[in-house]
């Protein structure tokens, strides 16, 4: 009997506490775990450090955590769609660290894969050199991209079985399979939850071993 990882919303809300580092899947407002973000807002957890591709739209998706001011630190590749994040970032009220998108993806993948980092040519000769060691390998210059992990990852899937094997759909996959590997507690919101054994193993995109909790379908 495979472990059933489906949990009620209240049980998930209880996992959020002040000061956590939280990774969130999604790109702009697509593939974003909106119900889990709502649960995080409702938890009232403060001083959160968020890692996500972007800051969503104003008050939408990850933007809810900017507007609620629960996010005090934000590591992402882009905040241009959310002027509220730009204003807080420029004034210093929210500590915004920008990272090239491909580097961010690899840093998260490293964090979930037990790797000490990767070397990338991305950012060589730019301001990125101020925050990353530059190394030379076989005559080529690279920047060291260090791994990222989080206390909690929030993931949006199209389909989950009750063990946490996941499928994604279209461009809503984006950062979700990566953040799903890189946190101590991985919580999934799925559009559909199916019995274990009904997803063909060949088509599983995120193996259930990475997943700890799945938000119950009725959201309660």
């Amino acid at each position, binding site marked *: 009997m495979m472990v059933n990882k489906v949990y009620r919303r209240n049980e998930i809300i209880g996992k959020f506490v002040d000061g956590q580092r939280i990774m969130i899947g999604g*790109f*702009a*407002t*697509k*593939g974003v775990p909106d119900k889990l973000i709502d649960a995080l807002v409702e938890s009232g957890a403060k001083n959160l450090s968020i890692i996500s*591709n*972007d800051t969503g739209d104003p008050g939408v998706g990850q933007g809810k955590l900017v507007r609620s001011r629960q996010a005090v630190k934000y590591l*992402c*590749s*882009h*905040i*241009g*769609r959310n002027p509220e*994040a*730009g204003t807080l*970032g*420029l004034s210093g009220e929210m500590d*915004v660290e*920008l990272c*090239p*998108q*491909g*580097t*961010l*993806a*690899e840093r*998260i*993948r490293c964090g979930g894969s037990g790797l000490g980092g990767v070397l*990338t*040519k*991305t*950012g*060589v*000769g*730019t*301001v*990125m050199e101020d925050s990353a060691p530059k190394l030379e390998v076989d005559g080529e210059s690279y920047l060291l991209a260090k791994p990222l992990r989080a206390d909690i990852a929030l993931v949006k899937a*199209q389909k989950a079985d009750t063990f946490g094997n996941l499928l*994604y*759909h*279209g*461009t*809503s*996959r*984006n*950062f*979700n*399979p*990566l953040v799903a590997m890189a946190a101590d507690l991985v919580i999934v919101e799925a559009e559909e939850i199916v019995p274990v054994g009904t997803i063909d193993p060949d088509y599983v995109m995120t193996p259930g071993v990475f997943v700890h909790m799945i938000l119950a379908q009725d959201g309660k």
Partner: protein
Amino acid sequence: MKNNREIITQRVARFFNPGDVVNLGIGMPELAGNYIADGVLLHTENGLLGYGPRPEPGKEDEDFVGAGKQYLTIVKGAACFDSATSFAIVRGGHLAATVLGALQVDEKGNLANWTMPGKMVGMGGAMDLVVGARKVIVCTEHTTKDGSPKIIKNCTLPLTGAGVVNIIVTELCVLDVTKGGLVVREIAPGITPQELQSKTEATLIFPEKIAPMYSEPSVASQSGN
């Protein structure tokens, strides 16, 4: 009469051949997608290779969008993937070209297009694209709205990439970035070398043979005869 964006993006599209995989940046670059040859595959960094024109109204799918959140259609043979795989395609040299806009581009092929003082936007995937694509094509109007040059001697804004640009396409010319400087490959009909240089801060190199950037429509074709 074509507008500048049409002139620029139609010329950009002619760089691509069937089988090429190309990433078009948000804004003007993505318009080049309207003019590409059959068989050119478009990549979007949020995780899709093989997208087509925007869907008809009512046929939008929330799970098929571009990096600018615009709805997309998919072509036969398309593939979806996560962001790490997407940037493996980018940095791994699997893109024939990437097309990006510019705030500034200089004669050493440096590109600045992600930030300016007093703005906080983020580089998104631009820094990865410029180091990974086999050809980096900058498409931009030749000058800013107030007429100041965008093609300059040295970028002053924070760089997206250092020495990464291969080709610059504006409404006035096509420039090759070479070790010796910016070489005028093509010039728009009716534009003299002097006029082009006067609108460019960087020193341009004019070879003996410069192709016309496009053919001027004849009087006959304008009147429909």
